[in-house]
């Protein structure tokens, strides 16, 4: 159903809801938190002002790599208005988002690993005073050699950036093989080998990270923070502060954009918590924009080598993918990111044999982590551009080629990912039709072109960050005598509409209005755990938990109303804020009366729901990254116009189709698609987290090229093309009301579709992101000189790969275990080594 022009004023006739099926789900609605947002009343973390509040500023390393010999804070402490100065000695316990990478200290004790690494904190009455006092802290550094990229990291084992990891400056190496890939190449008619590079980029949320901590009247800690993952922050605070978790309350304030950049527990959060406890007064920090660039955790720069064997008809016989990943100075989600660079290749097209090797290195740059599409974006770029090259060589239309090889629904892939609904073919057919692809591809005048690409993404990561057998999401409902319903859930509102998802589902089940619902979310004291807003998990996980809790409440109400109305409870319907007999709708009680009847019969009405993803068939080590209850699919066609003289690219129009399952609130779904398209275009054309060395006569330090919003280019309202969005709806049995994810998947096809369109327009391959005018001009010069009309990396450095875990695919008699490793269930492993996911 095209939803281009959906609006609440639009008669609901076009939506399935009006067919009588649903009253709330699928109907374009004002989101529950919209009024607060348009009146400026949404309370973001930095909007919290409290009596006696003190302000915190962090002293950050100006050096990319150094030992701290000595820190003297006495002058800062003596500065009028300064309450407290903290250093690494005050917070020595290491933490990190993944149990295997507990490698961060809130304030560096003796080793700084990137420019911006925090060393000390000043807490003062005024923000300006704290800022001034930073200059009064004397630090004696011993400068160490700097490692700027993965190739240098491979060649430079000393000095080590971290004392843990595989060896030298290699953080993580993985190798997995699903079937004999060499044999699959022998069976191929054509073999394609391509090397791609995907530059790093950052989230650039408009809201800078901020946090306020207090020691509450009972002596416990409360922290409000712009975090996507209050539960994980809760755990990190308990660990570093050595406090019982029961004495810590984390409240995630609505995030002013997250995109993955607020998913780690951050040093500044731990510092203000410690300071508030010591000072017994509220302490606030709000990062400057420059500091946000140093927090980073953004897209990993990844070098990729794809070797793919195909038959003449386009069928893939096997694929071998190698990735070399620039991790920056800390682990962050990096181990999971490493696995993710090889996880989802098999989810879109049938790949009978697959080998993946990935290597993440440490470098002296701000740490990389999860950004929208986490780790899967970079290899998707390579895979879809290579497929375009394959189609050209085989003389098959790229859309037709993809349609031939799309993976089937309800399949287990070569690497043991279990797929549910797969509507990629329909997505392709839709964009081919709406874009008039057949009339445009290879037919537009020189300088204009179209490109097509596809993708898949998780609807929630199958496993938690830390190993446990508990649900990934929980919801509590409270129904009161006035007909009000309160939802308590740890799910975190980062702008994507997670509150509205919960409210919409509960309202639908109980037949009430979303605005009759109060939400208490993202708070570790108020609601049951939800793991957070990452991996597109909220709709399916918190949504299913809400669905279960609401159905349980409805059951109680139905039983009580059935007795009052003397009708079988199966005949009762919940709609229009009433409970009524579907056979005789005049027999009804208002919703609030139904609650009273139920309360009289059963006592206080409160229900719970929880959600645990299905078990994955991937039993091999590393198989924890990639499984999801179901996957979303997207196809996009992009038209570009390229000026051959300047290399300037404009994008007039984009057609995109997304396999959503069912849209819970169509305007919000469309907003996620268009927001993803926008962010993808930024990455395709301009965004890059780049570094440069200062001259030798200065410090020769490796510094961020442009830690400012002015220089870090991102698309403005003038750059956004027209977008035609279509939703392909086939309710997925695993999603609440059939819904799948939409927040991340639609970003993935954008970058390769742009690259493919550039080739269609001017006949040069840009095997690198971002695709800048400079690269186009260089590639065109190569073309004119009769050389390979291409811009991109030419070699993949040598990596000592470990022996691959060999896991025979399902169709070769495999059972999900590696044949050369001890099966997981019989091998006891300490907590730290458990397979991780994000």
């Amino acid at each position, binding site marked *: 159903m095209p939803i281009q022009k959906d609006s609440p004023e639009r008669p609901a006739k076009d939506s399935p809801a009006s067919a009588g099926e649903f009253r709330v789900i699928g109907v374009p609605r004002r989101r529950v938190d919209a009024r607060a947002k*348009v*009146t400026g009343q949404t309370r973001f973390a930095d909007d919290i002002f409290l009596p006696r509040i003190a302000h915190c500023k962090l002293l950050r390393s100006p050096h990319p790599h150094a030992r701290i010999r000595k820190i003297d804070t006495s002058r800062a402490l003596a500065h009028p208005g300064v309450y407290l100065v903290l250093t690494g000695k005050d917070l020595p316990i290491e933490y990190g988002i993944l149990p295997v990478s507990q490698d961060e200290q809130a304030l560096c004790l003796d080793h700084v690993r990137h420019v911006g690494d925090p060393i000390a904190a000043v807490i003062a009455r005024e923000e300006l005073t704290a800022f001034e006092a930073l200059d009064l802290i004397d630090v004696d550094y011993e400068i160490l050699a700097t490692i700027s990229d993965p190739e240098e990291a491979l060649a430079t084992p000393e000095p080590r950036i971290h004392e843990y990891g595989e060896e030298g400056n290699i953080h993580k190496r993985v190798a997995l093989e699903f079937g004999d890939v060499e044999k699959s190449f022998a069976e191929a008619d054509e073999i394609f080998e391509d090397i791609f590079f995907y530059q790093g980029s950052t989230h650039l949320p408009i809201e800078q990270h901020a946090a306020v901590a207090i020691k509450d009247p009972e002596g416990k800690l409360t922290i409000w923070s712009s975090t996507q993952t209050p539960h994980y922050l809760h755990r990190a605070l308990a660990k570093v502060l050595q406090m019982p978790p029961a004495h810590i309350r984390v409240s995630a304030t609505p995030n002013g954009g997250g995109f993955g950049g607020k998913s780690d527990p951050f040093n500044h959060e731990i510092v203000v918590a410690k300071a508030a406890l010591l000072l017994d007064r509220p302490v606030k920090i709000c990062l400057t924009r420059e500091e946000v660039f140093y927090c980073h955790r953004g897209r990993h720069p990844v070098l990729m080598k794809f070797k793919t064997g195909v038959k003449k008809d386009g069928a893939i016989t096997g694929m071998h993918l190698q990735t070399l990943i620039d991790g920056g100075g800390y682990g962050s989600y990096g181990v999971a990111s490493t696995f993710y660079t090889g996880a989802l290749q098999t989810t879109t097209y049938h790949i009978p044999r697959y080998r993946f090797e990935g290597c993440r290195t440490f470098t002296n740059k701000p740490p990389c982590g999860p950004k929208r599409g986490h780790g899967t974006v970079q290899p998707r770029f390579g895979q879809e551009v290579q497929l375009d090259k394959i189609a050209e060589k085989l003389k098959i239309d790229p859309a037709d080629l993809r349609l031939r090889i799309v993976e089937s629904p309800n399949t287990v892939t070569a690497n043991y990912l279990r797929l549910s609904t797969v509507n990629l073919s329909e997505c392709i057919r839709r964009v081919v039709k709406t874009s008039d692809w057949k009339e445009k591809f290879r037919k537009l005048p020189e300088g204009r072109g179209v490109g097509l690409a596809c993708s898949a993404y998780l609807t929630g990561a199958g496993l938690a960050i830390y190993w446990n057998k508990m649900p990934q999401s929980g919801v509590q409902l409270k129904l009161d005598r006035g007909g009000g319903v309160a939802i308590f859930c740890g799910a975190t509102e980062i*702008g994507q509409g997670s509150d509205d998802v919960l409210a919409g589902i509960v309202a639908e089940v109980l037949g009430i209005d979303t605005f009759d619902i109060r939400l208490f979310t993202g708070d570790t004291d108020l609601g049951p755990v939800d793991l957070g807003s990452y991996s597109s998990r909220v709709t399916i996980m918190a949504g299913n938990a809400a669905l279960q809790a609401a159905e349980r409440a409805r059951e109680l109400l139905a039983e009580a109303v059935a007795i009052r109305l003397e009708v079988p409870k199966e005949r009762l319907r919940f709609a229009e804020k009433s409970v009524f007999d579907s056979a005789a709708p005049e027999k009804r009680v208002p919703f609030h009366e139904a609650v009273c009847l139920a309360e009289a019969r059963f006592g206080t009405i409160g229900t719970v729901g929880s959600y645990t993803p299905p078990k994955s068939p991937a039993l091999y080590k590393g198989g924890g990254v990639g499984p999801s209850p179901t996957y979303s699919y997207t196809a996009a066609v992009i038209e570009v116009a390229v000026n051959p003289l300047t290399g300037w690219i404009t994008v007039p129009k984009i057609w995109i189709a997304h396999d959503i399952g069912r849209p819970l609130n169509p305007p919000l779904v469309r907003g996620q698609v*268009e927001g993803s398209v926008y*962010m993808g275009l930024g990455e395709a054309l301009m965004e890059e987290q780049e570094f440069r060395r200062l001259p030798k006569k200065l410090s020769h330090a490796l510094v961020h090229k442009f830690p400012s919003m002015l220089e870090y280019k991102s698309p403005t309202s003038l750059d956004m093309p027209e977008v035609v969005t279509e939703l392909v709806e086939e309710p997925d049995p695993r999603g609440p009301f059939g819904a799948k994810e939409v927040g991340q998947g639609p970003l993935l096809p954008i970058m390769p579709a742009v690259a493919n369109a550039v080739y269609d327009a001017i006949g040069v391959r840009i095997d690198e992101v971002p695709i800048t005018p400079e690269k186009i001009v260089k590639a065109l010069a190569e073309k004119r000189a009769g050389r390979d009309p291409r811009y991109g990396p030419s070699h993949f450095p040598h990596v000592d790969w470990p022996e691959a875990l060999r896991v025979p695919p399902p169709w070769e008699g495999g059972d999900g275990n590696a044949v050369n490793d001890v099966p997981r269930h019989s091998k006891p492993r300490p907590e730290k080594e458990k397979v991780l996911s994000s």
Partner: protein
Amino acid sequence: MTLNGEQVDVSFAPYKTLLEVLREDLGHTGTKHGCELGECGACAVLLDGKPVLSCLVLGVECDSRNVLTVEGLGLEGTLHPLQDAFADLGAAQCGYCTPAILVTAKSLLDQHPHATRDQIRAALSGVLCRCTGYLQIFEAVESAMVKIAQQNGSAR
């Protein structure tokens, strides 16, 4: 100065920006900040009807001038048509740039009640939004424009 139609007297340190005075001294936290360097546009307010970046204007410059923030957009308990349209059409996702975009759009529509899509694009180009991809924002402005024209028509 006059803030949202109301005369206010406030004393503050002379180096403070209008943004800081609004948020810290007058408790008007509806106006946001994303860089405090004039790069992101999130702090836009209307000064004598024209959009300015409040992080680049000193508080003392605003003596006896008119400042309009998102808090002053609606009238007597009702939302401004722009606010209604933004709420209904998905134009506010995280809501962080929304106050700046709303007042900037108001200024545009005050001057150009029949603004074209290109005029809307140009007027809003100084405020960055990372969530929406701008399209639903354009549509909300256009929808509000129609509503405002209808209101003005029926008032006549």
